[in-house]
């Protein structure tokens, strides 16, 4: 199927600006790489210079991710010819190229030339993805606490090792600045639910433990609700909400004589009907 030039251009530029290709499957990477090459062959003369060099940068990343180092080098040379080697963005591309061909020392050298260039420091943290990665990220965040993508990366690293409380702390730092980032609200809700799963016991629960677990679920419920308040059509949040409201633990909680727990279970009952109706649209 042939696709019109303006639509394809818009799609490729959106992929380049969002960095969406970083989460592509191998097939999606190959398809996009060949589509971009075809597009550049046919329409280079029609593009303005900003669009063209953004697409060259995308081509560089796709070539690296599909193991086409020679094409990556060619594209990198085009970019360095145009912009020189002083820009942080170019230095990062040069470092990524060296990393992809296994030359970690040269990759590190590009990133350590000037400690004031924080984008390079950020990339430098990724050169040791072993046990030191989290401490490197914390060191960088101490230098640049306003870097929300770094907080997101740190959160994802904590989640990988199952430390959901710290992961939630990092995500809350993001919503302090970006209050309407609804996928982050959803993620916080999800991590609270994971904390519940980690801590629940199959044996008979003591009252204190039960209160603690119900409170964790209350936090999960509240963050799913924040997410839905911003984006009513976010199916995953409705499904998450349905999941936590139908847990057996709420029936046990009804037997507990505690004012706060009573309030939580009453609120849960109040929204259950709406959630049951809505979730049918997404399951």
């Amino acid at each position, binding site marked *: 199927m042939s696709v019109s030039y303006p*639509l394809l251009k818009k*799609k490729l530029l959106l*992929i380049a600006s969002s*960095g969406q290709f970083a989460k592509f499957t191998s097939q999606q990477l190959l398809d996009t790489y060949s589509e971009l090459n075809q597009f550049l062959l046919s329409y280079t003369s029609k593009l303005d210079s900003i669009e063209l060099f953004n697409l060259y940068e995308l081509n560089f990343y796709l070539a690296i991710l599909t193991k086409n180092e020679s094409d990556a080098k060619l594209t990198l040379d085009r970019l360095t010819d145009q912009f020189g080697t002083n820009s942080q963005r170019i230095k990062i591309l040069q470092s990524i190229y060296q990393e992809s061909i296994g030359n970690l020392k040269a990759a590190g050298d590009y990133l350590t030339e000037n400690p004031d260039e924080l984008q390079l420091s*950020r990339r430098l943290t990724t050169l040791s993805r072993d046990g030191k990665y989290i401490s490197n990220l914390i060191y960088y965040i101490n230098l640049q606490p306003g870097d929300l*993508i770094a907080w997101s990366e740190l959160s994802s690293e904590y989640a990988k090792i199952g430390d959901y409380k710290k992961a939630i702390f990092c995500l809350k730092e993001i919503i302090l600045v970006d209050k309407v980032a609804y996928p982050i609200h959803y993620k916080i809700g999800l991590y609270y639910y994971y904390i519940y799963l980690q801590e629940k016991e199959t044996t008979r629960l003591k009252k204190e433990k039960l209160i603690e677990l119900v409170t964790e679920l209350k936090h999960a419920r509240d963050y799913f609700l924040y997410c839905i308040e911003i*984006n009513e059509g976010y199916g995953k949040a409705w499904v998450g909400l349905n999941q936590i409201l139908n847990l057996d633990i709420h029936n046990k909680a009804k037997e507990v004589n505690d004012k706060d727990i009573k309030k939580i279970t009453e609120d849960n009952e109040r929204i259950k009907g709406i959630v049951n109706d809505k979730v049918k649209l997404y399951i």
Partner: protein
Amino acid sequence: MKQYIYLVGLLLLLHSGYSSFEYHKFGIEISLDIKLESLIGVLLIIIGSIINIENESFLTIDNKVIKNKAKYLKFIKMSDAVQLGESLGVTDYEEYNTRLPFINI
């Protein structure tokens, strides 16, 4: 179709302009139909320009065309405005998910 509205509006405006020039040459007062013609011409040009700012469609990764439900501008209600990104699979908060600066090569 949209371009024709522009064209018709422009032709009407040119014609009314030329007619009024001819009327002036002979010192006759401009008639009502010429005034109306120029007014309709201007209105058609305005309508044509508003119709032409209509939002365009987008392509998903799999090259499916997604029509923008908001015809002219973005929706004011955020819940509606973010649905286009959700259908495309690229939300305004994608960078927190993709984290390109930390990409593992």
